[in-house]
């Protein structure tokens, strides 16, 4: 589903990725682990074409992600749900509107929005927060809202970049359980984190990165644990 072929990314002042090659199959749950600055975030940004690789190619199925322009890119991004460490909710919109906006963006009708939004809010246990603004909610609630927004349009892939970075252990556990449930329903999940505990509780394929390189991939059994 996702193919990184010899991808390198060099910023003007630092090297983020060095010759990275790996594949993610549909339905997989892949955790990418590494210290801050290991290149995890760069990797997720390359999939969304927020950044362009210095060398190599990134494919989403048959699409060369960095050859896409304007509308095509918008369409690709609609197939991917994003969850961020800092939630990236729309501060001027209520919980309901945040999710409704994501549905409006892909052209859903008002009826679909009215029936789906309460449903997904119930899924992440936020029904009582319907008309609250993000700044009125706790970190864990904001992240659950962000996940609800990410899955509302049934994306093929969820990318979660340090989703638990700002959360306490209880909320962290909850978020991981939600992501696992989403994966069980068939959505591919890529989870980037530096938290070993999270990786262990997921217990699926782990790609370990260091200084922009993949140093271990449990699927390839390059390195026994």
């Amino acid at each position, binding site marked *: 589903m996702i193919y990184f072929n010899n991808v390198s990314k060099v910023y003007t002042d630092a090297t983020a990725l060095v010759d990275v090659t790996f594949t993610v199959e549909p339905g997989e749950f892949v955790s990418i682990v590494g210290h801050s600055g290991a290149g995890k975030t760069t990797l997720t940004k390359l999939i*969304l074409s*927020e950044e362009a690789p210095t060398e190599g190619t990134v494919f989403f199925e048959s699409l060369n992600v960095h050859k896409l322009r304007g*509308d095509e890119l*918008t*369409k690709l*991004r*609609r197939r991917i749900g*994003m969850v961020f460490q800092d939630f*990236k*909710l*729309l*501060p*001027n919109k209520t919980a309901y509107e945040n999710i409704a*906006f*994501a549905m*409006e*963006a*892909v*052209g859903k*009708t*008002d009826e679909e929005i009215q029936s789906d939004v309460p449903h997904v809010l119930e899924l992440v246990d936020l029904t009582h927060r319907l008309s609250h603004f993000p700044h009125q909610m706790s970190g864990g609630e904001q992240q659950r809202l962000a996940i609800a*927004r990410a899955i509302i*349009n049934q994306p093929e892939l969820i990318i979660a970049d340090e989703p638990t970075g700002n959360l306490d252990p209880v909320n962290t556990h909850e978020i991981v359980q939600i992501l696992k449930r989403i994966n069980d329903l068939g959505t591919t999940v890529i989870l980037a984190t530096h938290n070993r505990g999270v990786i262990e509780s997921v217990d699926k394929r782990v790609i370990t990165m260091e200084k922009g390189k993949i140093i271990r991939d449990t699927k390839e059994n390059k390195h026994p644990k």
Partner: protein
Amino acid sequence: MCYTKAMALTILKRIIRAGVLNFKRSGLVSWAAVLVVTITLSVITALILFQAVLHFSLSQIKDKVDVKIYFTDSAPEENILQLKSSLEQLPEVTEVAYTSADEELRLFRERHASDYPTIQALDELGDNPLPANLGIRAREVSQYENIASFLKTDGQAVLGSPTYIYKINYYQNKLIIDRLNGLIAGAQKLGFLITLLLVLISIVITFNTIRLTIFISKEEIGVMRLVGASKMHVRGPFMIEGAIYGIIATLITLFLFLPATFWLGRNMTLFLGINMYDYYLANFFQIFAILLLSGVVLGIISSFLAARKYLNK
């Protein structure tokens, strides 16, 4: 995305709703932008009124200028009337007034009714010393020269003989007319330049203010794009907000100028030569239309350009 008519309508509805909501939720920031647009529109209104005063004063001065042809006693009246009708056919001429020698005398007596020595001197003369004349008014001050040269050539042919003309006061007034002409052209040019400059400055300030309000939403724009919103879906609400700035600013400006012009009308009518309040009310709908159009277009275009900067990142 499906682009059926119903869907397009839904999208438009959503964009408008989001714009109105954003305006309400941005609170002080929105009102700051409205204030700046109001200042711009006030400048435009003040300039419209200033132009009216300028135009009125200039046309009053122009009205005071005319060319008079005085005829000798030997000139037959029908020849003069013939000249009058041929003058009236000139496109530059707005009005030709004939005053016969007797009429001129009557008017003179009327004007000087209380001026006993003058009337007495006139009576002493016995004869009518005042010549018959044609008063000519042109559309523009600059056209008097053409009319004078017409009189010199064709005019004399119509009249029959050059000796019938006693004098044409254009040649006496030429210097003043020429100067006035330059002055009017200068005043109009200056007025136009000042208008252009002030409007330009206001537009730049407004544009920058709106840019600042959108700068605050910079991150939001990025998030909307990540969620998969099209450019129009992101930009639309900002443009609606811009239009709202324009509409509210128009209403505030129109309202503010009511007491302002009322005061001007009551206290400055003599000085300005025109009652501002009457003028404002008489042209209310034109001014309303100009302001609304300027405000809304300014708001929408500023928002469009400002949002574009963050959309393309």
